[in-house]
């Protein structure tokens, strides 16, 4: 700490960032909390309704619960693809004799593509008529009977809108896990191998415990990002058909900007924030406890 600092100098450095952060993040949180207690369409006068919005959301809104269930499904698919995929691919790339950098770079490529481009791409991958990439592959390997319009079939649409999000960021999490795995001391692995440890034992008892702190961070990252996932489902299906791919985020967006029900939309967005906080709390408690 600088001893020559003055109160003014602290304020000079601290105020500008706090103002921008306050205007963009803190104030909107407070405003959402307030708005969630009102009924307002943006034009007529605001009407205080107390906790009525919350009551309606939790007790009387089937679409909300449908969207919540879909969000959990979306989260599960994203986590399996991103974290499971990342762990497997990172382990494999680590075992490569050469070309690791190239493999990592190529695998990371989808992370720099915009969601609009990804949504367009997957629209054509899932296309049924004319048959898109996926349906052609199925036909090619003799599974033509499984061909389906993935985005308009209510039983496949949730998986279909979740998979692109999983695909997009697997590379990012792979990179983080790869770096953690590469930092496991070679002596430990060598010693275990001489001990006759199988690949699985080596992974389970040496590598995984070693990367545990990074793993927790990665799980938190992937979970909070999946919970706020919006672009791809919004662009691909806009929640449809019906509500079969509606997420809390798309539901909130439509409530706000299509039905202009600002009060109720704020209630849903407050719920999304609480959901993220609860998820982070749960992950920290569960993973740390197993750790101890």
């Amino acid at each position, binding site marked *: 700490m600088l001893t020559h600092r003055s109160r003014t100098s602290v304020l000079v*450095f601290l105020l500008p960032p706090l103002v921008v952060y306050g205007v963009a993040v803190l104030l909107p949180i407070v405003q959402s909390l307030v708005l969630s207690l009102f009924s307002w369409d943006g034009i007529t006068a605001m009407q205080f309704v107390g906790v009525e919005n919350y009551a309606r959301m939790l007790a009387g809104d089937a679409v909300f619960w449908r969207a919540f269930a879909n969000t959990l499904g979306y989260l599960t698919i994203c986590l399996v693809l991103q974290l499971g995929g990342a762990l497997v691919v990172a382990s494999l790339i680590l075992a490569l004799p050469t070309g690791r950098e190239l493999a990592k770079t190529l695998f990371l490529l989808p992370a720099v593509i915009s969601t609009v481009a990804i949504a367009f791409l997957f629209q054509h991958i899932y296309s049924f008529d004319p048959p898109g990439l996926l349906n052609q592959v199925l036909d090619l390997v003799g599974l033509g009977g499984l061909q389906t319009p993935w985005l308009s079939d209510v039983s496949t649409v949730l998986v279909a809108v979740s998979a692109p999000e999983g695909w997009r960021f697997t590379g990012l999490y792979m990179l983080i896990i790869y770096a953690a795995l590469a930092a496991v001391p070679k002596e430990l692995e060598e010693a275990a191998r001489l001990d006759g440890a199988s690949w699985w034992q080596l992974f389970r008892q040496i590598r995984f415990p070693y990367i545990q702190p990074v793993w927790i961070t990665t799980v938190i990252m992937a979970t909070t990002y999946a919970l*706020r996932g919006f672009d791809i489902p919004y662009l691909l299906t806009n929640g449809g058909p019906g509500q079969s791919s509606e997420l809390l985020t798309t539901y909130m967006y439509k409530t706000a900007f299509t039905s202009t029900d600002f009060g109720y939309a704020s209630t849903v967005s407050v719920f999304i924030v609480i959901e993220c906080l609860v998820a982070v709390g749960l992950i920290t408690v569960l993973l740390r406890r197993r750790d101890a």
Partner: protein
Amino acid sequence: MTTGHLAQGRRAQDPRAKSPRAPGRRAPEHGTEHVMTATSQRAGRRGTAPRPSLPPAERRRRLDLHRSLTTVVVVLIVAVQVYPLVWLFLTALRTPADFASGNLFALPGEITADNFVRALGTGNLGLNILNSFVVTMGANVLIVLLGTMAAYALTVLGFRLSGVVRAVFLLGIIVPVQIALVPLFIDYSYVGLLDTYASMIIPLAGFALPMSVYLFSSFYSYIPGELYEAAMLDGAGPYRIFTQITFPMSLNTIVTVVMVNAIFIWNDFIFANTFVLSDGLRTIPLGLQNYIGAMGNVDWTATFAAVCVTITPLLLVFLVLNKAMIQGLESGATKG
């Protein structure tokens, strides 16, 4: 967003991160145990019978087999991962008739650049790219400037409530951006900021700021205090120390922060889609979506070309800078 930063940011939150080997804090217990059993068993074997193991040639053969198998699997996985992108570019080079004829796996029968000509002629992609550039630059300047300033106040200057302020910033990492959409929309319409560059730049910078503050803070906590003491003896005050010592020393962290944020800001869809109303301010994702809406079912191959045009600038930057980028992300993760 700042996905990559979360890992790096943990350094600042996690008290254990003071030690550079923090990630392995638990592992040594496991590790030593294993090393010990390993050595004792080896010692035991040495005393009695030699270990019945495979002959070296056989072992090497197995290892080679194992390696080539891994290589084949990785090549397959990477191919599946990258193929959609290759397909995107291949389709953009097809003639419309070729695309309509159906087989999406065949190489284009005839390569044409016509699609690109039509895409650039119909859309407003040049203006979209310019807008994205303005927003990305503006937000990044704010993120770096405000991030270094806040980190300097929190970590180098220090003050009584710095812990509280740090915690308030920390909160921002897990707050989903959706919470800000309705309030900002209302606020903007009151102060006339709807449909401006600022309407995108402010929330993009605000939501990226927490990660940036943590990254810079954790870097600043490694700068030795002697450096500052020497500067103070020379008569430098807090402002000169910031502009002449702390800020210039942050260059590497600045590069990481800018690169990762640039990707997410360049591709931002949700803020632009909510706050931009006029054609002239559309960024690339909006322009592209507009193009897809207008031409997506009319001129397919040109739409593929338009998609390619919009993703190419960032792909090129990424391919050129990927070493630095990957290193930035990895170093963040291992120190996490």
